[in-house]
Structure formats: C-alpha cells, structure tokens
C-alpha cells in the first residue's frame, strides 16, 4: 500500500508542476500559435487534475469544453487574426470617432 501512495504522490507532483510549467510557457511564448497549442495541452492536463481530485463531472466538462472546443475557437480566431493582418498591411490608425446614427 505504501508504494501506491508514493506513486500517487509522484503522479500528483509531476502533474502539478507540469500544469504550472505549461501555463507559464503558454503565457510567455512569443509565438501565438505555440501559446495556443500549449494552452490546449494545459486543458488536457487540467482534465487529469480533475480526475485526481475525484471530480469526474468537471473532468468531463473540461475534456469537452476545455480541451476540445476552446482549442478550436482559439485556433479559428488566430487564423482570422492572421488573415486580417495579411490582407490589411496598413492599419488605419486615426479613426474618426464616429457619430452615431
């Protein structure tokens, strides 16, 4: 039984530190795409953390929303961000404050 507890501890520690590490990498990464992929990985690990905390309901929600849909949303947004950049090289900086209708 002792070994099991030890292994569980090791699992929790590795998972906890990876969570922090990946979050840190995702938030400091220079490349936006890399940041998003890291964030997706972060979501996967979060689901494992919920499992370890005996919260399978939350794990299920995280797996479906956090790992699946948020990633797709972020990637699609990034794509539109970059295609906007590509089509509009000169930003129109001085936008006149528009009168309402």
């Amino acid at each position, binding site marked *: 039984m002792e070994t099991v507890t030890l292994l*569980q*501890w090791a699992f*929790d*520690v590795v998972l*906890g530190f990876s*969570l*922090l590490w990946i*979050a*840190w990498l*995702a*938030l*400091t990464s220079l490349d*936006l795409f890399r*940041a*998003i992929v890291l*964030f997706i990985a*972060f979501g996967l690990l*979060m689901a494992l*953390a*919920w499992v*370890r*905390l*005996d*919260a399978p*309901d*939350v794990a299920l*929600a*995280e797996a479906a*929303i*956090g790992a699946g*849909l*948020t990633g797709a*949303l*972020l990637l699609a*947004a*990034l794509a*539109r*961000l970059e295609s*906007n*950049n590509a089509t*509009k090289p*000169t*930003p*129109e*900086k001085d*936008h006149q404050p528009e009168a309402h209708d």
Partner: protein
Amino acid sequence: MSHVFLYALVGVGLFTLGLYALIVHPHLLRKILAINVMGSGVFLMLVALGRRTPGTLPDPVPHAMAITGIVVAISATALALALMLRVQVETGRAELPEEPLE
C-alpha cells in the same frame, strides 16, 4: 498535508501567473489566454479545497460551481475573441491602445 492542498497551491500559482501575464502582455489573445488560466486556477482551488476531509464523499457543490464557471469562461472567451477580431479590424492591431483616452 494531503495532495488536495498541493492542487490548491497549484491553483494559487496559476491564478498569479495568469494575473502577471494579463498585466504584462499587450496582445489581446494573450490576455484572453491569461484570463482563462486564471479561471482554471480559481476552479482548481474551488474543487481541491472541497476535497480536504479525507475519507468522505467529494462535495458536489463546488463541482457544480466549477462546471458553471467553465461554461461562463468559454462564453466569455468566445465573446472576447470576437471582440478582439473587431478591434483588430478597426485599429489594425489586436492590442489595446497605450493610453485610454483622457
């Protein structure tokens, strides 16, 4: 100290990391990611602390709250991403201006 406190502390760490990134990074996508990481930290604390009494059933109320929070988070993320794209179309950059107009 049981392993739930480890996760609660990880939650604290995530919250602070997210806060730091939110303040420091000008790019909006990063700010949105930072808010999400902060949210994960909060949910982690919420659920982990509910598990601290050893040998009992997990408390379902924080679980329900975390699920609610996750749904709110994805709603806010989707809105923020769409708004970010609009900002980029209007100003040419997906960043906030350096100074709020005074």
